[in-house]
Each structure stands twice: as structure tokens, then as C-alpha cells.
């Protein structure tokens, strides 16, 4: 079974530029998550989708970050314009469902390392 796919693996941009990350979850997984992991810290949830609907985006900086999952499968996370403090690893994860129990077990992709200069 293929895992969670992410691209690109690395990205370097100048501040105020825009950037987009792509994620394809495990086949059949209804729930998709985007996390931000700053160096030395644990992952922090940015947004959670259930199929193509947003379940939680309370920690997403909506003035510059946006995400979509139009067909309920793959997803794109965008930053526009980027700031220096956005330098981090952006992780995508998926689970069979977002509820209680083992159906909520999350599986992570390899991540995208973003450097903002």
C-alpha cells in the first residue's frame, strides 16, 4: 500500500514570495491533516479536512495561509506572502476517519522543508 506522498521535498524562497505544497493521502483515507513543524518542536496542526470539508482550521494563519481539498483526495497548502518565521517542515498526514478509535490512526508523509530567506 502506498504511503502519503508530498511534493516538493525542499523549497527555498525569498520573503514575500508565494509557495504551494501538494499532498496525496493514502487511498481510501477520508481525513487529511496539514502540520507545521518548527525546528526543535513537535508538529502543530494547521488544518484538518474530512473529505473535502474543513473540520478544524483554528491554528491556520488565514491572512497568509490557505488550503484546499477540492475533490476529497489530494490537497494543496499555500502561503502567500511568506515570512521568515514560516521556515519549517510542512507535514501532511492522513487517517481512515477523524473520529475516535483506531480509525483515527495517523500516517505521515515525508514532509516539505521550507526555507524563507
Amino acid at each position: 500500500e502506498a504511503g502519503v506522498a508530498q511534493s516538493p521535498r525542499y523549497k527555498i524562497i525569498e520573503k514575500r514570495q508565494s509557495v504551494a505544497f501538494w499532498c496525496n493521502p493514502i487511498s481510501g483515507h477520508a481525513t487529511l491533516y496539514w502540520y507545521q513543524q518548527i525546528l526543535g518542536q513537535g508538529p502543530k496542526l494547521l488544518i484538518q479536512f474530512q473529505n473535502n470539508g474543513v473540520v478544524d482550521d483554528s491554528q491556520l494563519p488565514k491572512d497568509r495561509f490557505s488550503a484546499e481539498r477540492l475533490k476529497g483526495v489530494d490537497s494543496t497548502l499555500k502561503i502567500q506572502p511568506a515570512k521568515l518565521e514560516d521556515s519549517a517542515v510542512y507535514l501532511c498526514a492522513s487517517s481512515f476517519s477523524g473520529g475516535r478509535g483506531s480509525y483515527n490512526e495517523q500516517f505521515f508523509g515525508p514532509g516539505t522543508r521550507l526555507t524563507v530567506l
Partner: protein
Amino acid sequence: GIQVEQSPPDLILQEGANSTLRCNFSDSVNNLQWFHQNPWGQLINLFYIPSGTKQNGRLSATTVATERYSLLYISSSQTTDSGVYFCAVVPREGSGTYKYIFGTGTRLKVLA
């Protein structure tokens, strides 16, 4: 909100040694997972263990939900065990979104 504390924060072992990593959480949880983040940044599932005990090769984990802690045991450590170990929990009381909260992590280095 729930607090998830891991200990020790850093650990250095000689290859072949055993270790115990601890995860304490301040409130009741529905789900709990242990992850290993390797030096390349990949988060690898180790265990889904909201309660009870599980074993997978040299690794085992125990969660005592009533006392709000989980333990990860690594036996006969190898250099490939190096990295950061995270526990992540879903609080029982919440908004219904069942989102995972990650702990502070334990950074492990195994020396050859």
C-alpha cells in the same frame, strides 16, 4: 488545554542498551500514538496505543490511561533508533474534531 510532557528530553545510549521513554498527559485521552522521527524528518508510526500493552520486535509500549501516562521501551538499542520520539494524544474532552496534540519529544542518540 491538555498538556503532554515527555521525559527525558534528551537521552544518549551506548548501542545495545535498553531505555524507557515516558509520556504524561494532563487529561483523559481517546487516542494515543507513538512516533519516531528519523534524522531525515520522516515521522514513522510505532504504536497506536490508547490503553494496554503492545510489542513490536525490540519495541514495546504500555499506556495506563487511568493514570494518564504511556511508556515506550526500547531494548537492545541500535544506531538506527536515533532520532526524536513523540507521543501524540487526542483529548477526550474537546470540540469534536479529534485532533492530535503532540508532546515535547525525547531526542535519542545511540552511539556505536
